[in-house]
């Protein structure tokens, strides 16, 4: 699915972090399309607090790589104006936790521009933002808020679980004529100052390619149980599946990739096969991703061999102290325990 007018490059695949994959995708697209520009706090001189724009200022200069004031409402609003004018802005909201100061520009303006205008005015912009905790940054810097964004119409919302997908999703996101919220998980980002799940660092082709914005992926096949995750929880699910395999439980693992649109068909087909569903994410539990996954499966009338379950962050603010935070965060062991419980004969109806 690589774009026809992509520069032909023979750059080989290298192992990259998600951060590098993102900045490479943006850089390549900026070369290809003069309408692409990047704006945000600390994205120029600093290269992005999470490395999403490293090297871009040097390459493309301050007109196209713009540090902004701490004025999220203004610069995200400006992005919609740029997009309406045919530019392709990429804006960074440094932490998703900050959405509360600028959500109007995102959900009421960018997300509805196309609809309100009856399709006259599109809004080709990417809002990239970091999500997730686990490193002691407390309750205003550790949220994921997937469902908050998934719930509001007019936005596409993607979450890469690895560098390969990150690059392909970013290229797809920039080229998409709609606002795309691109959420990258700090525990997968590959920053020098934050631990990173090694599996997220993958071979990344130097070439131009896109990963579809609307397709979930089966990242491990299995027959007894379907584990559904996104971002970090995909890796936890994979670790859990590995452990479960030792107990002769064959878990299928789905990486949602996108929560809007949600690829319900892939999830349903898997659960039809396995008969068991365990959804895992690190957003708040109530009205969260897991609820939507479970509802999507159950409303389809799929016969289940045990009650569907979910693991998520509980309905509490994210506590600072690691003894509390790690106690409440989802992890592979919790997935294994829940899965094993679901496999017990008593759990089956």
């Amino acid at each position, binding site marked *: 699915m690589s774009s026809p007018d992509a520069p032909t490059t023979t750059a080989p695949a290298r192992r990259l972090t998600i951060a590098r994959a993102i900045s490479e995708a943006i850089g390549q697209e900026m070369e290809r399309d003069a309408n692409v520009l990047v704006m945000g706090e600390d994205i120029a001189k600093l290269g992005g607090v999470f490395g999403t724009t490293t090297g871009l200022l040097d390459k493309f200069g301050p007109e196209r790589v713009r540090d902004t004031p701490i004025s999220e409402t203004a610069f995200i609003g400006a*992005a919609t104006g740029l997009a309406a004018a045919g530019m392709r802005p990429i804006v960074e909201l440094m932490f998703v936790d900050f959405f509360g100061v600028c959500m109007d520009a995102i959900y009421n303006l960018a997300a509805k521009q196309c609809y309100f205008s009856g399709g006259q005015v599109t809004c080709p912009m990417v809002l990239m933002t970091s999500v997730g905790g686990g490193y002691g940054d407390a309750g205003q810097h550790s949220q994921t808020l997937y469902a908050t964004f998934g719930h509001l119409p007019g936005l596409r919302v993607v979450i890469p679980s690895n560098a390969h997908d990150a690059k392909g999703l970013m290229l797809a996101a920039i080229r998409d004529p*709609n606002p795309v919220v691109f959420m990258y998980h700090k525990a997968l980002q590959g920053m020098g100052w934050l631990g990173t799940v090694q599996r997220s660092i993958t071979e990344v082709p130097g070439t131009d390619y896109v990963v579809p914005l609307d397709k979930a992926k089966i990242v491990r096949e299995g027959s007894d149980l379907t584990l559904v995750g996104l971002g970090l929880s995909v890796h936890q699910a994979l670790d859990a599946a590995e452990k479960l395999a030792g107990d002769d439980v064959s878990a299928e693992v789905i990486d949602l990739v996108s929560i809007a649109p949600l690829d319900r068909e892939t999830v349903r087909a898997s659960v039809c096969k396995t008969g068991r569903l365990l959804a895992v994410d690190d957003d708040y539990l109530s009205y969260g991703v897991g609820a939507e996954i479970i509802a999507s499966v159950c409303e389809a009338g799929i016969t289940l061999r045990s009650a569907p379950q979910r693991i998520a962050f509980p309905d509490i603010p994210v506590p600072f102290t690691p003894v509390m935070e790690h106690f409440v965060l989802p992890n592979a062991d919790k997935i294994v325990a829940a899965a094993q419980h679901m496999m017990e004969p008593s759990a089956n109806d």
Partner: protein
Amino acid sequence: MSGTPSNRSDRLWMYATMVKSRHFEALIKPAYFEGKTPVFNMAKGPLPGEMHLSDGQEPCAVGVCAHLRPGDTVTATHRPHHVAIAKGVDLDAMAAEIFGKASGLSGGRGGHMHLFDARVNFACSGIIAQGLGPAVGAALASKLRGEDHVAVAFLGEGAANQGAFHEALNLASVWKVPAIFVIEDNSYGISVAKRDCTAVERNSDRAAAYAMPGHFVPGNDADAVHRVAGEAIARARRGEGPSLIEIETCRLEGHFMGDAEGYRPEGEVDRLKAEDPIPAYRARLLSEGFEGAELDKAECEARAAVDAAFAAARAAAYPQPEEAFAHVFA
């Protein structure tokens, strides 16, 4: 609406356009109450939902838009008709949109608070101060492309207390983009008087907080607006950056249709109506050498265009209900 118009033609255009806007709303008024009898219910009739009229504020729209071209961007507010008409939004499609018809600007999806006409780069919205960021973006696009298009964001004086105002003006100044922020000071945000919610008397003084020129235009006077806006827009086109303009105007109607206006001091509306800017402008034009006949002709054409737009809008078909699902995404 040309770039460097002779003042005479601009004045004629401003007069006719004010009349057009006023007549547009004159036709809205009875239509809005149709079907809402015997018990008023906003949901009913051919024009459901809130309806914010701009009667009295026409000088702001025409004085600014006289300097604008289709390539210039305007973002307006929940009270958009006068600005939309002055910016050259397709009158037929605009009327049809307000009636929720398939031939409307947005096929009926947006309605009166969400008028978009991409042809002339006009948009408006229902969230206070929401259009300011987009105007900065449109202005930046113009600058990056080396064009001389400007972007004008209209807002009410109440909106000048919203955080987005501060952020957008600062950003426009830091980036030195060709944006003009036009505050229509009609003294009220719904029921709240400006003096009860705004720390300064004139929002134009706030321009200093953004190192940009601030202009106050008294008197609800189209010519005065035209002069000041002309300077600010020309400055922006020359690449010298943004400006802030506050225009003293008045709202002759309620905040929205159905507003009981109990918050107004007694006699206020009568006083304001006595100073209605449109007849006053006609009188001035006559006194300054315009012919009654030419004004009548312009006025007549303006009304006729509006009448035709309304007739067509009423006659037009509603969209298919399933069309609700179209255009969520491009």
